[in-house]
């Protein structure tokens, strides 16, 4: 069973994601900001992290950096889910080491397809 960590400060968005991935047989973990996410990631070593960028306290970029610097988490895939939709933002996200970048509002179906692609 794959482990997924959903990091977002908007509970309403998290709700839908959580429901979807539980149905797809993921082990779902939830964090409301970057700090919480890093803690959880360290203990559970997720296969995939869905990461929002604009969050209180520790933002998505910082979280990504920390994950990428952590040897234990070198297999973890990261998908940015952000309202920041400018080309420059997307490029920045991918350059920093995100595997995928989806802009909000995203389609859940597409998100699932993209995530499946990560392992094929």
């Amino acid at each position: 069973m794959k482990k997924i960590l959903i990091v977002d400060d908007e509970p309403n968005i998290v709700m839908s994601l959580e429901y979807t991935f539980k149905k797809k047989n993921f082990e779902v973990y939830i964090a409301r900001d970057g700090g919480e996410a890093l803690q959880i990631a360290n203990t559970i070593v997720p296969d995939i992290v869905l990461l929002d960028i604009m969050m209180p306290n520790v933002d998505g970029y910082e979280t990504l950096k920390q994950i990428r610097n952590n040897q234990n988490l070198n297999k973890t895939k990261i998908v940015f889910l952000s309202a920041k939709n400018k080309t420059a933002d997307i490029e920045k996200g991918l350059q920093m080491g995100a595997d995928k970048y989806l802009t909000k509002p995203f389609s859940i179906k597409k998100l699932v397809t993209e995530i499946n692609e990560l392992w094929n």
Partner: protein
Amino acid sequence: MAFLFLIAYWAEKNSKSKWVNNPYIYALSLAVYCSAWTYYGSVGIASQSGISFLTIYLGPVISLPLWILVMRKIIRVSKQHKISSIADFISLRYGNNRFLGALVTVICVFAIVPYISLQLKAISETFEIITDETSYVSTTILDDSTFYIAVLLAIFVAFYGTQAADASQRRKGIMTTVAVESVFKLIFFLIAGIYVTFFLFDGTSDMYQKASQLDNFNQITAFNGVTSGFNWMFTIALSFFAIFLLPRQFHVAVVENDRERYLKKAIWMFPLYLFLFNVFVIFIAWAGNLSFEGNVNQDYYILLLPLQNNNIVLALLVFLGGFSAVISMVVVSTLALSTMVSNNLVIPYGFLDMFVKGDPEKNANYIKTIRRISIFSLIIIAYFFYVNFSYELSLYSIGLISFVIIAQLAPSFFIGLFWNRGSARAVKTGMSIGVLIVVYTLILPFVLNVLQGNNSFVEQGLFGVELLKPYALLGIDFLSPEAHSFFWSMFLNTSSFLIISLLSKGNYRERNYAEMFINSSNYANLQDGAFVWKGEAYVTDIRAMLKRFLGEYKTERALNLFNMKYDISKEEEMADARLINFSEKLLTGSIGSASARILIDSVVKEEPVSLIEVLNILEESKKTIAINKALKEQSNELTETTKQLKAANIELLEQDRIKDEFLDTVAHELKTPITSIKAASEVLTDDHEMPDELKTKFLNTIVSDADRLARLIHNILDLEKLSSGRDELEIQTNQIDKTIDKAIHGVSQIANKKNVAIHYQNGTRIYANYDEDRMLQVLTNLLSNALKFSEPENGEIMIQARQKQKTIEVTVQDNGKGIPAEDINYIFDKFYQAKHQNIKKPKGSGLGLAISKKIIESHRGKIWIDKKYNRGARFLFTIPRS
């Protein structure tokens, strides 16, 4: 005398002090006009012919208002060209003509030397009166005290007048001395006047009564028909010219002028001085007429009156006053004349070749020596003139003759200032004719009279021809000899000057200088560029020439300044017109303009320029200057505009950035609920087996996020409306406590739920004018914020309204966690999260405070946060009551 040396010494040492450099010294030095003639001679005239003595002072007084116009121009021109005497001035105006300078010099010497001798005569005679040597006849020079006084004066002038080789430099020592002497002579004269009028007699009316009994009283108080009228006019005109043209007046007024603005003081101080000097003249004259029976020299009444009454001290003071008058006149006159003699006569006609060969230090010494010799010669000549001639004449008549001769400079001087056609040839002719007429009608009769002892020449005319009678040329016999001479000489002088000027054109150089003088203010900007010159000259030649006169150091400094001023390279080999003119000016101060020109001409190869060319070039340079000026102004404007544009651009960029940020934030804020709605809807659509309970939860999420979206849109629009000023407030008189009650009521449900207490003391009624709905919005926002950040159970909120002088002040404070210091400056910004791009702040639309601020501001009020309050957050706002 020792005192004079002392003052001069002090003034030279303190030449920077404000005691030496002020308009009062300048105005007082002008009073060098009042020589022994004024001091003694006026009384003499007043006793014989009444108030006509005044005319000699009316001229200057009439001319003074003109000074602002004429004198300022003269001073400006003289400074531009480093002019050091009137001879320089006139010769430069007419194309730097060497002969003209010499002619003017000769005329001045001719006029002034007798005048100086007259001053010596006054000293000698008053000295006799004081020492009571009535029978004194000087047998040899060596036991004549006047001779020693003359020599001392010469030493004084030679020492302080020739300190610098450049004659256009100011001599502060001498000028200060002259000013001090002016004060002396006035005070002593006034003391004598008061003594005579109020102590010897019982005031002015007493004197008038007594004097009116004298036989000749009517004659001396009234006008005597046409003759007297003409004589009045003539003396006024004479003195009018004299105040400009007398070498000593030109020297004090122009060469020694430090600042143009001093003129403004002088034009009222100098007339005042003259007035004070003349107040008592008529009374002293009457007193003299009453006390003496015609057997004494009326000129010396002022001295004789105290003596007769045994007031020796006063007599001595009067003598000292007269002595001061003489000294200052002699000193300044010889100084001015010696400069002219050396720069316009001796150097250009004799010593130039020697200078060209000599080395700089020797040259400067030669120049000074020539000037010193001139000073001594002038005074010695004056002394011998006095010994041989002056016994015969009164102070007044020699003074007048001297004025008439000097007046011959007037046509070329005044007309030349304003009319560009005047030419050198015309000036030479006019002046020569004028002087010849004066000689024939005034001097010859006098000399012949002295030599032959009879008046046959005057009575019969030349060769016995009636029409050539020297006092009545062509039968004009109703004028006094001086007026007659003045009339004819001026008439012929002026008309020949005008006619020849009109008939012949001056050469291009004359025309060039004429333009520079007449339009001095125009060409001031052109500076050295106003001089038109064509030809070939090497900088090295000119430099070598300058070095001979100025020395190595001064030359290099001057040329460096020149190069800097006109931005000319040091390596430039060929000299241009500006350098030629600049060098001429540099030399002019030392050796006079004529010699300067000859010297410069000797090292350059000049090509003749046609008159038309001169005018064209001048016109062009004038235009270029004007264009340059306009260009400069434009460029300045452009720079200014560019600066403003840059600032505006930065401002725009900043606003653009803020707008972008705002839009970004708005987009983000809108996307969040949309994302949630979309995701929930997708989940609901795809999953048909979802339990009802969960389904409801998703549906509720959709509803609440749709609400959030709507609220957000509403707030954004609201803020936009307030910002653009499209929102119209409905301002009415309201009671703030009632509005606060309503606001509290609005949030009470949430407060109760969170168990947070809201304290409000509803006390006095406070009325104010505001839009109640908007005010409610602000209060609600502040209260909701306070509630949001208060801890449940023990949170406390306090709201308060106070009436101030012109405003009401509302405070909302809570005991929550307060506002972090780093945010405090941004909390009124819309979506202030934007400042910290990716860090989100606690929930809310992010627009509440921004909207509140807009509302308060549109009420012309202020909203702020109390930064010192540290037990939570405290917001305050004020609005005007009406």
